[in-house]
């Protein structure tokens, strides 16, 4: 197995708030190999978006990386200078954002925005960059690119805008693309188109993807491996098929049971009771224990480690076997 | 029903005022503004006590003297004590500025209330008037009006009112447009309260804060206007001391006695600074939480 393209070890990110320090990401570790796709799943507030942005140093003003390392292509970016990080952005690593209406410069034509990275970062001439932009627009499926390149973002539909975002992300020939809920703000039908496009591009161009979403179905469609996040920590990770078919963490189980999208043969649809914890003062012991149906006394104190379960799977639960039993009794996904 | 609405408004106002009383001393800009302005106002009020000469008494044997024990800031070209003229000038300019802000405030607020509450053609005409007045460069219109009406303080008030009501009307109208859709107004209306009562007892206390905040920064503009008019010879008439007039008179002696023009200007700047700080502080304090 080749060297990982992205190595995250024990990442910690804190927010300075008026009422104290909030640890949004607390000891997250994962690897992404070239050409691989990893999904990062969790509710809002789980820390998935913060973790993603921390990878390239695009955190808001009030946030700081307070621990851990991030290595991209062998370079330690967490302790590197801003200049070094900037070098990698756009060319080695690029990002796709959730809301293309706000993520695109409203007063700049889309063609120009797509051509910007080739022009400024890859040293292409104006004409070359323009050609490249048109090429990319064709690649992402924008019809009539020559005319569309002259348009402003507000003149395009939501799906078109997201395609433009994808084109921008591809324009620097990246090896890794970070996707921050790119389909959440879109119509369901468009969502599907964009997801298929991403899958196709990933295969054809052999780029690695880290795909953040709260939507399990979307992650199932785009990623081969998944990490489930809760309250700033990874609570389960493994191959998508394994994790979703046989979750080993109560939270993952709860998520699976509350999602109606899968072709599940289930009588009941249950939501997870309770609410995510306040990360300025998380609960002692397992962070999920206040909402957990399998909770026992040893869950209430101490750090719960991520337990290896073999075959690339891991779960942060002392009673993962209980969870497995529960799944066997009442499968989350129908066979076949 | 209407009684309930009135009770709600009362409660809101009390809450507002209590919040203000609790925080004013912790807002640095407010405190600084009050301090600076307070000192100047005190000096103006205590003018006879802190000056040794009258502001208009000439001493043609001792013109253009530099600062000395007898004349703290020296004398001007007619032998008048500069310090005294400065302090009495504060009296004149401050008084005129405060009054000059009061009339536009009152008239503008009234017009804004009516235009915002009734809407329709009243509003349209008001808007048109506002746009017409705004189309005139501020100073041009004031100067033209002072020309037409003649100089002197009374006409300064009239001129500034004619030009200045516009901003207040706009602010109040904007606030009323938002406020009149609030529950307490609808409750009052359905409770059968008269329009006048609704406007004055219910809307006014809630929309007037923005206008008050603006008034503070407007005083700065008015002081500048009065001083400018004084400079041009169209303002407060001599021999009443006025900072603008002092600057104008001093300009002839720029090469030899530059302090004659500079010192009154500094007085204006400091006064304006105090007022601006006060305005900022008030804005912070009166901002709804």
């Amino acid at each position, binding site marked *: 197995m080749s060297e990982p393209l992205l190595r995250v070890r024990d990442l910690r990110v804190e927010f300075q708030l008026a009422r104290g320090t909030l640890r949004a990401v607390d000891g997250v570790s994962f690897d992404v190999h070239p050409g691989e796709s990893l999904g990062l799943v969790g509710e809002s507030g789980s820390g998935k978006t913060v973790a993603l942005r921390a990878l*390239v140093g*695009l955190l*808001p*003003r009030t946030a700081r990386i307070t621990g851990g390392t991030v290595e991209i292509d062998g370079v330690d970016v967490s302790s590197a200078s801003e200049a070094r990080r*900037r070098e*990698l*952005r756009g*060319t080695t690593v*690029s990002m796709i*954002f959730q809301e293309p209406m*706000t*993520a*695109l*410069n*409203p*007063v*700049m034509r889309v063609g120009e925005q797509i051509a*910007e*990275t080739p022009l*400024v970062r890859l040293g292409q001439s104006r004409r070359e960059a323009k050609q490249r932009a048109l090429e990319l627009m064709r690649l992402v499926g924008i019809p009539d690119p020559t005319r569309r390149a002259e348009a*402003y973002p507000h003149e395009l539909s939501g799906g078109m805008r997201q395609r433009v*975002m994808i084109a*921008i992300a591809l324009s*620097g020939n990246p090896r890794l693309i970070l996707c921050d809920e790119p389909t959440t703000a879109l119509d369901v039908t468009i969502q599907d188109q964009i997801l298929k496009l991403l899958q196709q591009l990933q295969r054809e161009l052999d780029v690695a993807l880290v795909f953040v979403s709260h939507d399990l179905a979307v992650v199932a469609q785009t990623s081969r491996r998944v990490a489930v996040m809760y309250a700033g920590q990874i609570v389960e990770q493994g191959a998508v098929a394994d994790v979703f078919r046989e979750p080993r963490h109560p939270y993952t189980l709860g998520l699976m049971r509350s999602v109606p999208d899968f072709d599940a043969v289930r009588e009941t649809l249950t939501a997870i009771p309770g609410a995510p914890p306040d990360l300025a003062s998380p609960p002692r012991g397992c962070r999920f224990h206040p909402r957990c149906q399998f909770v026992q006394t040893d869950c209430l104190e101490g750090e719960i480690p991520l337990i290896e379960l073999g075959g690339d799977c891991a779960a942060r639960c002392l009673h993962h076997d209980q969870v497995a039993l529960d799944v066997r009794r009442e499968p989350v996904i129908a066979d076949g | 029903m209407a009684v309930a609405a009135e009770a709600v408004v009362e409660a809101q106002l009390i809450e507002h005022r209590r919040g203000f009383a609790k925080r004013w001393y912790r807002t640095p800009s407010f405190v600084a503004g009050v301090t600076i302005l307070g000192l100047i106002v005190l000096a103006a009020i205590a003018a006879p006590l802190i000056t040794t000469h009258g502001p208009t008494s000439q001493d043609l044997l001792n013109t253009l003297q530099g600062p000395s024990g007898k004349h703290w800031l020296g004398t001007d070209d007619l032998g008048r004590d500069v310090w005294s003229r400065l302090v009495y000038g504060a009296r004149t300019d401050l008084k005129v500025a405060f009054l000059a802000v009061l009339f536009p405030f009152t008239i503008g607020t009234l017009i804004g209330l009516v235009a915002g509450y009734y809407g329709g053609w009243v509003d349209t005409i008001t808007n*048109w*008037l506002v746009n*017409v*007045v*705004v*189309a*005139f*460069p*501020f*100073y*041009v219109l004031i*100067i*033209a*009006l002072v*020309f*037409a*009406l*003649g100089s002197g303080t009374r006409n300064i008030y009239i001129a500034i009112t004619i030009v200045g009501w516009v901003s207040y009307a706009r602010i109040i109208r904007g606030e009323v447009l938002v406020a009149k859709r609030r529950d307490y107004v609808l409750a009052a209306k359905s409770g059968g309260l008269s329009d006048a009562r609704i406007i004055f007892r219910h809307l006014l206390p809630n929309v007037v804060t923005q206008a008050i905040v603006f008034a503070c920064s407007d005083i700065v503009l008015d002081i*500048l206007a009065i*001083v*400018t008019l004084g400079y041009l010879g169209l303002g407060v008439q001599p021999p009443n001391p006025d900072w603008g007039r002092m*600057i104008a008179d001093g*300009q002839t002696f*720029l*090469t030899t006695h*530059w302090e004659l023009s*500079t010192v009154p*200007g500094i007085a*204006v*700047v*400091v006064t*304006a600074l105090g*007022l*601006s*700080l006060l305005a*900022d502080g008030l804005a912070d304090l009166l901002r709804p939480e």
Partner: protein
Amino acid sequence: MNLGGYVLRRLLQLVPITLGVTILVFFLIHLVPGDPAATILGNQATPARIALLHHQWGLDRPIWVQYGKFMGRVVHGNLGDSLFYGVSSGHLVLQRLPVTLWLIGFGTLLSVLIAVPLAAIAATNRDRIPDHVVRAVPLVGLGFPPFWVGIVLLLVFGLHVGRAFPVGGYGNGFVGHLHSMFLPALTVAFGIAPILIRSLRASLLEVLESEYVTTARAKGLPESRVLVRHALRNAVVSTVTVLGVNIGYLVGGTLVIEQVYALPGIGQLMINSIFQRDFPVVQAVTLVFSIMVVLVYLLSDVVHALLDPRVRFD
């Protein structure tokens, strides 16, 4: 809707306002208590002169007829003759207009050159020392009477520091103009810059938090390009409107500054005419000033639409 359509629409909206302006200007005479002619003429009044003015202004006719005739003359460019100089007011105004236009244009340019870098420094150093320093500028600066600033500048640069600039007058030739007009334009600039700085800084702070700036940074673009091509480019959109609104103030400021520097512009013409009781000229200048302001509002709207493509699609 394209840019041309937008401009046309705005022009049409300005018609009732312009009409209102002419009415106000026209009624300036009627504001004067007593017999306007006698008051205007002051101690130059003789029965013959009074009667002449009455006739010249048509004061012996019903008011709407008077207004009609007034408008009729205005449309033909006839703004009455100067009582003092005897020539057409329009001619006097045209003669001196270039000076005032120079002052306004140069002043606006300088104010932008001052405000933009300062606002950028403040916004990119939020809550640190440079920011606090820049924020103090509008606070203190707005209290400076423009004419006093002019005098101080005259004192320092005109009379002392190497007598770098002339103390008055318009100068000859383009370079001469630049030289003579520099201090006056700087005075004008110091007047508007504080407001611009405040507005642009606020705008920039907002823009710098937006998603598209993050996108630009995600492209790994140098921070200077992010600031100029993405942040500033969007922040100036709302500042243009603020600048336009303050032109009303700016134009008035030139009037006083022309006095300070003895510049032969229409502002000085107005002041002199006021003291000379030369009413037709005062009326003419007031009208011209107002038309200028209205045009400036139009211009700022047009520039706004140019800068922000979303506006045109209304």
